[in-house]
């Protein structure tokens, strides 16, 4: 990429995001978690040795988030768990959005029999209840020792369809709008129309969906772990949450409040960061909304 291209890219895409309040805060939150997942485990050591004498300690300098039911530091677990949350969960939602977008856009563009076929495929995945189907699919593949990417794909297979359906509807409605007609008349190549014009309109939409998928992907991957269908990671936040609720009964005892609180706080913050960023992206890139600012 040429230097001036990079500069253009910065002014077109990055700078607006940094000036918008919502997207800036959202970006900062996400950046924080990405740092946590990448360099966090290197900086923060993980000591999973249970220590029954130090159970349920309140937050302190030694244990920023306190300790859990086993006397293990919660902060360390959150930091190390962020890696599997970010890798498995974000990867799964990423794949879901990717598949959903490609198929959705293709459906929006293709007419006639090809469009009908894609429509039918989307429909098939829509009507099959996803969570039980995922469990069965994972069971079918259980002897294959899948890696993270493959498991993420397995999860994504049952998440993409609603998005594809919505995107195809969006594309259909954008397609009929005048400025696209105009680009067509100007004889712009179809790929240009596809990626430049429509993508710009769809980005906010795709983004918000990506964020919405995170929760689904998180639930699905935890479900798989507990059923022994994905590699078990005790520091995955969803797994920690299950321990807090069922094994430690944290709701029933005042001592356990911080245990539950800090896990939920981190899950909520991560997703909230994503939602903020997506709302910011929407405001920045939706040309009409921008005109209003």
């Amino acid at each position, binding site marked *: 990429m040429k230097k001036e291209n990079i500069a253009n890219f910065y002014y077109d895409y990055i700078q607006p995001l940094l000036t918008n309040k919502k997207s800036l805060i959202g970006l900062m939150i996400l950046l924080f978690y990405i740092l946590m997942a990448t360099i966090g485990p290197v900086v923060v050591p993980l000591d999973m040795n249970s220590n029954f004498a130090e159970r349920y300690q309140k937050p302190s300098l030694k244990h920023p988030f306190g300790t859990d039911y086993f006397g293990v530091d919660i902060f360390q677990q959150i930091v190390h768990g962020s890696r599997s949350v970010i890798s498995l969960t974000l990867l799964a939602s990423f794949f879901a959005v990717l598949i959903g977008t490609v198929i959705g856009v293709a459906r929006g563009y293709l007419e006639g029999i090809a469009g*009908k076929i894609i429509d*039918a495929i989307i*429909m*098939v995945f*829509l*009507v*099959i*209840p*996803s*969570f*039980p*189907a995922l*469990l*069965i*699919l994972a*069971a*079918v593949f*259980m*002897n294959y020792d899948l890696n993270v990417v493959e498991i993420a794909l397995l999860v994504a297979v049952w998440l993409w369809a*609603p998005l594809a*359906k*919505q995107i195809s*509807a969006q594309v259909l409605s954008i397609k009929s709008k005048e400025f696209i007609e105009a680009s067509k008349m100007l004889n712009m190549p179809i790929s240009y129309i596809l990626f430049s014009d429509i993508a710009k309109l769809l980005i*906010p*939409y795709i983004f*918000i969906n990506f964020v*919405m998928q995170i*929760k689904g992907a*998180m*639930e699905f991957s935890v479900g798989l772990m507990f059923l022994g269908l994905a590699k078990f990671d005790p520091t995955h936040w*969803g797994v920690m*949450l299950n321990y807090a*609720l069922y094994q430690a009964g944290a*709701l*029933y005892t005042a001592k356990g409040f911080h245990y539950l609180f800090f896990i*939920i706080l981190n*899950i*909520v913050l*991560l*997703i*909230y960061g994503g*939602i*903020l960023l997506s*709302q910011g992206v*929407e405001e920045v890139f*939706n040309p*009409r*909304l921008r*005109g*209003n600012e």
Partner: protein
Amino acid sequence: MNYFINKTLYLLIVFAIAISGVFVLVNNMPGDPAYGLAVSIAQQRNMQIEQALEIAHKMMGIDPHESIFIRYGKFVSNLLKGNFGYSAFYNTSVNEIIAKSLPWSLFVISLATFLSFTIGIFLGAFAAQKRDTIIEGIISTVSSIIQAIPPFILAVLILFVFSVRLKVLPLGGAYPVDIEPSFSLEFISKIFLHALGPMLAIAIPQMASWTLSMRGNTSQIMEEDFIRFAEARGLRDSVIAAKYVRNNAMLPLVASLAISVGYMLGGQTLVESIFNYPGIGFYFGKAIAVRDFGLLTGLFTLIVIGVILATFIADFVYALIDPRVKLK
């Protein structure tokens, strides 16, 4: 009329692909429903597990060597007769299981959907109109947070707060078993009271996500040309809001409504078991755990049929209320 024939044909094809896919998937699951029984037979009679498996298969009426094609043929021909199959684990027809559990699931889920959708639409539209105000901030922040909380956490929380601590909600069941089912006011009110816990656990996260979607759709549509024309014509804000924006923003959501009902039917195993509510999610979980392939296929088929019919109706209704869409 042509539209109906086309649409029906299309949905029939989708249905055929979907249930065939499910059938193949389910029948390729590793595991044998008779294995548990075989182990106890092997132990009692001190024999090899292979031999015990043979006996167990016979006891449960399973033929492990039957080819998948024959099994598929049986499944389809049964289905054509309105028979959803046979549960080896419960030794009963899937139809009977459906008849006993589905009405309750459906009751809670339609209630939850209706409530979450109406409130979500209202809140979402309201937030979009009050863009860049504190109200919008509060609505979207709160719904983002609720949206992020896993539903089973909410279920345990509701159970703990309302049933254990405050004791305002009853614990377990669809109705108190010592009351006779009837159309009396008392019974109906009990049914609603018992459904309240699971209903809230399902509805609250749903509501949050409807709110967020509606907020997004509304702010997009508010910028559309015809809204601007309306503004230019000097119509009052509220009229514009009510008449054009809200209606148009709602349309795409109506389409996903039918699908969400189907999604929820298959996925409430945890919530139902936390509240001990007698729904279909329980059987879904059990069927997977004990590898009851007949029951599993039957339940899947039921939900697929339901979602397809619901989509059909939704499309139809959608076309009726949206002047821009015409039935071809």
